[in-house]
């Protein structure tokens, strides 16, 4: 009475075991691959801004200025203003709030005004692609990047760096 029932049960158990998929090897592979990929994955997306170091001083700056239709645009980042200059003359001065974080609404508004002014110049000079960004020695890197963003948004993606106070067309980073 008892014996056949136990044998049947054992047989049933065996067939049940055989029905299941053997997942452990696959699981082992996954468990070793996923940490590897997680470690190598970069979760912050980086981009780069190509900056042309100004050419060595062999090219005379005057030659650039005499070209027709070619502006030498300079944005000077002052402590309290963005000074926009073309061919050495000041075109406009856009006040910016000194000493606030760069994501402050007032600072954003100042950059917007600068962007509109640049876009107006870009509309007049469609060939213009370069702009020189002149910075004070104590200007923060993030401010320079912000101005580069503004000029790229206005259609002038080629930004070169220079010293504030240097004459226009004579960039500061120069061997």
């Amino acid at each position: 009475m008892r014996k056949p029932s136990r044998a049947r049960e054992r047989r049933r158990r065996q067939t049940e075991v055989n029905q299941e998929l053997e997942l452990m090897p696959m699981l082992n592979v996954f468990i070793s691959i996923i940490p590897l990929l997680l470690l190598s994955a970069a979760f912050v997306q980086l981009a780069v801004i190509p900056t042309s170091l100004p050419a060595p001083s062999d090219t005379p700056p005057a030659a650039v200025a005499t070209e027709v239709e070619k502006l030498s645009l300079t944005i000077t980042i002052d402590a309290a203003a963005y000074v926009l200059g073309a061919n050495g003359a000041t075109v406009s001065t856009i006040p910016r709030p000194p000493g606030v974080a760069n994501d402050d609404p007032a600072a954003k508004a100042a950059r917007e005004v600068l962007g509109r002014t640049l876009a107006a110049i870009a509309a007049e000079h469609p060939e213009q692609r370069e702009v020189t960004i002149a910075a004070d020695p104590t200007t923060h890197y993030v401010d320079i990047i912000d101005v580069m963003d503004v000029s790229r948004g206005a259609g002038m993606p080629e930004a070169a760096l220079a010293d504030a106070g240097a004459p226009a067309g004579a960039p500061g980073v120069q061997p």
Partner: protein
Amino acid sequence: MKMRERRKLRWRKGLKSSNSVNLISMMDILTVLLLFLLKSYVAEGEVMVPAPGLTLPASSAEQSPKASLIVAIDGDAIRVGNDVVASVSEAMASDDALIVPLAVRLQELRANPDQIAPAATAAVDPRLVTIQGDRDIEYRLLRKVMLTLSRSGFAHVSLAVLRTT
């Protein structure tokens, strides 16, 4: 007697079904995760990771980074690759237009171009350099680094930024 035996049998049955853990749902999660990671790994191309301890400025730039020499500038050190070559305070204090220890290291790299980006898979432009600068460094420091780079023959400078979407 019969009741007890049946109960015993049912109990054993329940025990047996909980004996093997159900792994299917876990496998589902792991498969999705694996696909996602593989995709992000393939889509990136060249992987550039910001140096630890520095906050890059955010920008709307969209150009992807290329394999190159990396010069990282944070609050207190200038690194080439993973090695600290100069301290910021010394570089700022000196009256030289160049940063001498950085220039020395760069000259070594010019002599051995295969050390420039050892982890890179594609060919590396030996004149390209990527600057990873902390958002709060001052322009005069950046200027010194850029001047040193251009004097040392690294003429194509890219500034690394965080991509904002």
